[in-house]
């Protein structure tokens, strides 16, 4: 594992028409990670990834890939990077195999990699078909195969499961998960689907309105959200008054009283207090925050991903 991160951005900003599409983003992707770049549509994911590849110039900030400044060492960095940005790129009048040949010659990759990459994405039986005749999912697979062709050290995938059917999503997910161990590839992938990132990524960066709101491992993200405890009683008003008297700070929500995280002994004690006061306790439940709740807490938005 190298000492410096594979991707490191500082204060990365892109401004269009006076508004910051990407605002002071500081990404850090370590070697061997599957980094999930999560955010709603229009959050600035693709713009950020495009800047990492030098497709668009940042308004401000610095980008280092493999420890090297992107602006100064772009050809060398691109040689070691595979990418699939937005929709897959392909020549529709050429067959899948011919598209791979174009990419192979551009990247100076060995010819044997073509079959290997097509096999990985399960397109080997469709390689003589024109790309125009491919389904959306097949085009996406072709795009992934082209990005994998040189078996790069860093793979940047923008919404890689777009257009794939559930079985295809599963296959691509397993493929991406196998890349770090099998081929030593570090993966940076973006998605607006929480479930996808949750199942694939080892680290996550959450972006909203151009700002990076969270960055860390998936484990620490989950751990950051503690479960809440909810008491449902027959007389919530009296229950609340009794508990306030005893120094507890419940939040009343309908006929429920909600507490931030409580230890088991505290739950037992509150239950006993209520029962002793002849207040029937109907239900005690622990509510663990989902990743979506965490996301909504972070972004402060009640919006669907």
């Amino acid at each position, binding site marked *: 594992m190298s000492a410096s991160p594979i991707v490191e951005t500082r204060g990365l900003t892109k401004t269009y028409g006076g508004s910051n599409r990407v605002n002071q983003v500081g990404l850090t992707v370590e070697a061997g990670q599957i980094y999930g770049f999560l955010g709603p549509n229009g959050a600035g994911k693709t713009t950020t990834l*495009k800047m990492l*590849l*030098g*497709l668009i110039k940042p308004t401000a900030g610095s980008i280092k890939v493999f420890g090297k400044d992107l602006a100064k060492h772009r050809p060398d960095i691109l040689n070691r990077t595979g990418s699939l940005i937005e929709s897959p790129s392909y*020549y*529709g009048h*050429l067959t899948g195999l011919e598209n791979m*040949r174009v*990419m192979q010659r551009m990247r100076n990759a060995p010819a044997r990699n073509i079959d290997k990459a097509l096999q990985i994405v399960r397109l080997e039986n469709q390689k003589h078909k024109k*790309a125009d005749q491919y389904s959306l999912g097949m085009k996406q697979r072709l795009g992934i195969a082209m990005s994998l062709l040189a078996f790069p050290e860093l793979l940047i995938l923008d919404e890689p499961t777009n257009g794939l059917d559930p079985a295809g999503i599963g296959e691509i997910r397993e493929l991406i998960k196998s890349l770090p161990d099998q081929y030593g590839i570090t993966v940076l992938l973006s998605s607006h689907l929480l479930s996808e990132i949750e199942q694939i990524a080892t680290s996550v960066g959450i972006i909203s309105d151009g700002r990076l709101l969270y960055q860390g491992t998936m484990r620490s993200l989950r751990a950051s959200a503690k479960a809440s405890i909810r008491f449902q009683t027959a007389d919530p008003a009296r229950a609340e008054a009794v508990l306030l008297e005893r120094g507890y700070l419940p939040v009343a929500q309908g006929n429920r009283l909600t507490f931030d995280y409580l230890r088991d002994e505290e739950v037992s004690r509150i239950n006993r207090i209520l029962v002793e006061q002849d207040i029937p306790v109907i239900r005690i439940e622990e509510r663990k925050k989902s990743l979506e709740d965490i996301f909504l807490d972070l972004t402060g938005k009640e919006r669907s991903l």
Partner: protein
Amino acid sequence: MKALSLEFFKIRRKKIRVMLLLFLAAEMIWASVSIGISISRSAANASWEALVFTIASMNGLFLPILSAIVVSRICDMEHKGSTWKMLMTTPIGRRQVYAAKYACANALIVYGILAQTLFIVVFGLLKQMSAPLPPALLARFAIGTLLATFAVTALQQWLSLAVRNQAFALCLGMVGGFVGTTSGLFPSAVRHLLIWSYYLDLSPAAYKYGDSSGSYVSGSLPAGLIVAALLMAVAFYVAGNIHVSRQEV
């Protein structure tokens, strides 16, 4: 060279060569009929100069449209498949691809110009022209046509790559064909500003009007116009390259 060979690889199945040949065949058939009628009216028209002049004047109509189509076919595939962003993430940069496309388009049209020259030779020999085969005249015809083509393809490529909708580039080709056909009617100061008039202006054969009739004459290519055509080619190429390279994808 790798970028150029890739361009030729990428145009397979685009049927550009077939289209080029059919287009030029139509021009040659038209030219054959026109020259045949002209010779049948006056034996004096059975000259190499008349033949070269007729083809050069027809080129003013056909080659701008042909160039627009060829360049558009070569450039359009990058728009259709959103492949610019893919090309930009490979060690082959956009400027190299731009140069390769320009070379590829011109190489294809050079085939066409050489085929035209061959047609002139074969047609002239079959029609038994009054003078022997003039290689210098034919070489000057090919060079003059080529110079005008270089500038026209540079302009077409700029538009075809900068604007996704190829209707604009094809319209420019048609406007060029119209200007090329009617350029003889414009004053020379105006004509020399319009690159499409150079197909005729850089022709080594001209029709000189006399008091009651005219005659075909040949001469060397005007040096000033050669320089002007080259400058236009360089200007269109450089401007297009800079503009397209700066566009964000």
